[in-house]
């Protein structure tokens, strides 16, 4: 039975929620607006909110002057590559822990979680030196490798919690009917696991796309993804607000869309199932 909600109360909470939502979203909105202004207007006081000369020239300049797509491609390869490889390693591991748990499974899971607690800065020095020695600094391979390992515990955990929800009886029924493990995997397990796989993929793409510790420290130019590219706008001599805004808008737009789709999984993925 739903509680009675008076119209008055509904109007008030609606107004309050929209106001707060707008305030929180405002910096992003302001950035998107600035990306369509001229440099002069982006800097102008008093600022113009909607009535300015709308232009798309910043987007053109960002690509021409700084090879935006090179860095966007790096982001796609690094985030996509690291996530896919992590999934390939994690799916069998999570599958095995969810369906053939042993006495040690819980300890293994918690140990995996604890590797994620290691602050990256604690191992910055050795990773940097190893990368320097083997020539992985500023390479996409190196970043794919590091981000893959960094996110592997989260990937395994998310998959594990999804796999555990798949009823085991169905697998047993399939086995009774003479299905081999391979067939069981392809025809029974996979279709049921697809939603969980998709959400895991999505959340970890987002995390890898926005990762800004290893990318800033291990890449400079060639392999630099968008996080590093945007950081290059922080130097005082290169301060162009409208262009910074255009580059930023392009950098966050795809992930904002993905993120909105994955908001439910976000809680699950980042709390390791501690909040449902």
């Amino acid at each position, binding site marked *: *039975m739903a509680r009675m909600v008076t119209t008055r109360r*509904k109007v008030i*909470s*609606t107004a309050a*929620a929209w106001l*707060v*939502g707008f305030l*929180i*979203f405002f*910096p*992003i909105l*302001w*950035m998107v607006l600035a990306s369509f202004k001229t440099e002069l207007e*982006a800097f*102008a006081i*008093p600022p113009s909110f909607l009535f300015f000369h709308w232009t798309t020239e910043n987007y053109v300049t960002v690509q021409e002057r700084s090879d935006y797509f090179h860095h966007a491609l790096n982001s796609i390869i690094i985030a996509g590559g690291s996530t896919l490889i992590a999934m390939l*390693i994690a799916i069998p*591991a999570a599958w*095995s822990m969810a369906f*053939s748990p*042993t006495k040690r499974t819980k300890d*293994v899971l918690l140990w995996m*979680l604890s*590797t994620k*607690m290691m*602050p990256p*800065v*604690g*191992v*910055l*020095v*050795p990773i940097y030196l*190893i990368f320097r020695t083997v020539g992985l600094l500023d390479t996409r391979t190196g970043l794919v490798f590091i981000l893959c*390992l960094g996110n*592997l515990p989260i990937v395994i955990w998310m998959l594990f919690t999804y796999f555990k929800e798949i009823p085991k009886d169905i697998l047993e029924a399939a086995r009774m009917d003479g299905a081999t*493990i391979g067939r069981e995997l392809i025809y029974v397990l996979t279709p049921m696991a697809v939603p969980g796989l998709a959400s895991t993929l999505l959340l970890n793409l987002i995390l890898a796309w*926005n990762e*800004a*510790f290893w990318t800033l*420290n291990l890449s400079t130019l060639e392999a630099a993804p*968008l*996080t590093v590219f*945007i950081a290059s706008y*922080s130097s005082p001599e290169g301060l162009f*607000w409208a262009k*910074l805004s255009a580059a*930023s808008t392009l*950098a*966050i737009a795809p*992930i*904002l869309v993905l*993120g*909105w789709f994955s*908001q439910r999984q*976000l809680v699950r993925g980042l*709390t*390791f*199932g*501690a*909040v449902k």
Partner: protein
Amino acid sequence: MATQQTQLLARTLLTPAVALLFIWMIVPLALTIYFATLHYNLLDPGSESFVGLENFRYFLTDPAFLASLQNTLVLVGSVLAITIILGVPLALLLDQQVVGLSIVRLMVIAPFFVMPTVSALVWKNLLMHPVSGLFAWIAHLFGLPAIDWFNDAPLFAVILIISWQWLPFATLILLTALQSLDEEQKEAAEMDGASAISTFIYITLPHLARPITVVILIETIFLLTVFAEIFVTTGGGPGLQTTNIAFLIYSQALIQYDVGSASAGGLVAVVLANIVAFFLVRIVGRNLEA
């Protein structure tokens, strides 16, 4: 034997992940410990020598360490306080009947998906710039002097930016928890004449205790190693005012090339994070059994 075969298979499937994570955890950590006992500077190659605990003594007695430890604690504490104190009422608000709730929720969550370098630069330039920033203009409208955020209150400016990034996370988790709260319990309290405030204190808040703990622990783990936001806005300055432990270690390693001391610092960071991790792992572990 089907079961034995299955078990063997299960172990085979698990091995790559365990092996990789084991190497990922042990090798760099062992190297960090090893480097921490050396005098080792990349600018002075060939002079490596064993110095025992000298690097730890140097790192821990360095005034920069105390300053950065303090900054780290202030930063973590403030962001936690802000995100939870604002997150609880915000989650309660979004739990009400709101027209267009899905759109409001999207707006509230959005900052979490913005990459750290973008949010830091947009806040620093478009909003907090002392002359042309929007905040300066708003202050001017009210006849107030503009705040030069990154000179007058640099750490607070960084705290504001990071709070904006993490408020959605806290809100979303608290909202998820609120939605699992038994409506009937609240209804019963209301019928018994409980005021909204006492319903909140005696029913809602206890229900939120656990998610709040989880938010605190997870945010702390990420906040202890905040880096990008400081890197692109202040570079740790002015002076050491916004240098946290992560940034201090970074600057010793990759600016001063002092491998030994940076490694010692890295181990200090690992110990700090592990204290928090210990509690988080316990909570998650308890949940795993339930």
